[in-house]
């Protein structure tokens, strides 16, 4: 009896499964070579983020655009600095958590292969990306569900955590309207990026 894909996959650890997905995806798609998750790739956008390489940034931008609302009166994801917050939060977690996040982003890039698209996630049109995310979140298999579910959660956490979005939701802001008190890490990260927090 020929094993079904899900029974073959069931015996693999989550990390090995993610690695398999990334490797198969990179091998299957023209113009992509298998790389170590999280490895830095030089390119036109190199240096945009401290935590992610250019390919991961492209995947994240595609994810963020697919999950945040486009309807009025919501602000654009860029106004809520979602990518910046992804970068900053990931920068300060432990190596293993950072690796998990990067691996999930790499896996997301090749997730469309499981849903009939011979394309990377970042190359799909917006509606197709949303369909892939929806299907992955509904999946009975753990890996697509965890990848899509966890990255979506982060994107929404960072988008709605930004004051630019609060008026659209009716949130009246923190109770005492205290001016933000930046931690040492927020100040350090802003210095590294040469910009300002938020």
């Amino acid at each position, binding site marked *: 009896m020929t094993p079904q894909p899900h029974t073959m996959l069931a015996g693999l650890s*989550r990390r090995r499964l993610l690695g398999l997905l990334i490797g198969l995806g990179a091998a299957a798609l023209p113009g992509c070579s298998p790389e170590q998750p999280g490895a830095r790739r030089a390119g036109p956008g190199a240096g945009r983020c401290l935590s992610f390489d250019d390919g991961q940034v492209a995947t994240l931008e595609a994810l963020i655009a697919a*999950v945040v609302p486009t309807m009025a009166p919501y602000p654009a994801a860029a106004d809520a600095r979602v990518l910046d917050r992804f970068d900053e939060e990931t920068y300060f977690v432990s190596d*293993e958590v950072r690796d*998990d996040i990067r691996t999930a982003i790499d896996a997301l890039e090749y997730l469309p292969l499981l849903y009939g698209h011979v394309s990377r996630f970042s190359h799909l049109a917006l509606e197709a990306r949303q369909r892939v995310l929806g299907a992955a979140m509904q999946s009975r298999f753990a890996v697509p569900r965890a990848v899509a*579910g966890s990255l979506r959660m982060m994107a*929404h956490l960072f988008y*709605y955590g930004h004051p630019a979005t609060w008026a*659209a939701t009716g949130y009246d802001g923190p109770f005492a309207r205290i001016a933000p008190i930046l931690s040492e890490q927020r100040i*350090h990260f802003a210095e590294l990026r040469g910009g300002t927090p938020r």
Partner: protein
Amino acid sequence: MSGRIFEFRDLTADATVSADVCIVGSGCGGATVAHKLAERGVDVVVLEQGGHYPTGSFDQDELNMNAKLSAERSLKTSADGGTTLLYGHNVGGASVHYWADSFRTPADRLALWAERYGVTGHDHATLTPAWDELTETLSVQEAPDEYFNRMNLLVRQAAATLGWQGDRVPSARRNCQRSGHCMQGCVYEAKRSQLVTHLRTAVANGARIYADVRALRLEHGEGRVRSLRAAVIDRARAGPSGVTLTIRAKAFVLAAGGYNSAAFLMRNDLGRRLPALGKGFGFNPSPMVHALYDEDIVLWRNIPAAFGIDEFRLARYDQRGRYAEGGYLLMPNQVQPAMLAATLPMIGDAHGAWMRQLPRIGSTIGWIDDHPDELGEIRVDSRGATRVHYPFGPVTTAMLRDLVRKQLRLHFAAGATRAVVSGSQALEFRPGDRLDPVDGLAVTASGLFMGAPHPSGGCAMGGSATTSVVDSSHRVHGFGNLFVADSSVFPTAVSVDPSFTIMAFSYVAAQQVMGELGGAAERAA
């Protein structure tokens, strides 16, 4: 003599620190032990790997405060990638961002621990004086009417309609401003966290607290720990500064918390001699259901849980021993807007449409009582990283689905017009809908979006070194002067919020440490 809080800025050169007792961790366990020892004149040093954020640095910003107070910025999950591990990383530990629920350990749970696991000296009569004192020290009281926000009122009304038993929640707060920022740290010091209670009195009595210091290596031999090597963390970079401390003490108390203590002992190569290390681990997985109401709920103000439903605290089984229902506490939920958004499972404009109605969104949450035969395990991988494995066994899965069903019933009894299960499948219901789809609900790997704020086990207490890690004196088996005082010593979950149990157990631990110091003095003489 007054002590002091040292931070990374103060620790610029390698040093050796001497004390009677060295405590690793400053949460409910470590802070309570420090308080009890310091008030008796013991020279105490507390190490905390997180930063010291005084209440004046609390700005109530959801993301800013999460980054300051929450370990791994709340981005670390169980090994299946699904359940978020919530624990503190700051002076005061998780108590600074907890809800302050302060339940005395149910008598049935203490009896279970005594009868099945051989725990002695932690019965209700022994712990009651500790709880009585803590009730005064931490201003514990049942929530008065003014602490009930609209969600709490609706849950209380719906529970009465459904005939479900519930009570006002005892919590540690006074002069509450009802800001709703318990989880961002209470700038008003109304919530009586360890930061503003036990650690303050400990320092006033001479304790020295070293923030930004990560315990690394125990030096031990012949059953006694002689010293502990620790690394100073540059808080801005979140990495070692290169400065190391060596702490010499007569006794060492590990109180690094349920997610850290077992892993610390494993990294110190004690796994082989302590086969139960890391095992018997529970973390109270906590599914949520969000719902829309025809009125404003304003979930983000006032205290999180003034009222809780304890009708289903203990699981019920049929005559053949099969799971029937229950095994959890069911509470009103409080999440600030960004976390609510993160746990709403839609995407794009569908998500935006829900969030446009934010003031009218209500929420409930429940903490399952981890089934003692389906507990998980903490492991340390080849890089030294902690991995939390949790099996989500058949009874656990059934409990979670039953808890989701009960939350849906509660919302509709409270008047909700739509409800959505907080999980990847985005199951949505309206009043009168059949709840059958919940039977097929995936629970692992983001099937349900769950936080896990209440770890237990990993250094379980018991009589045998083969089935437990510490004995009933809180000593690690085989050691005379190494103690554990946090939730990792619980043989199972507590079935209620564990903070008051941790503190009462820590009273016992402090007493045992005093005995050890007396023995050390005798040995020295």
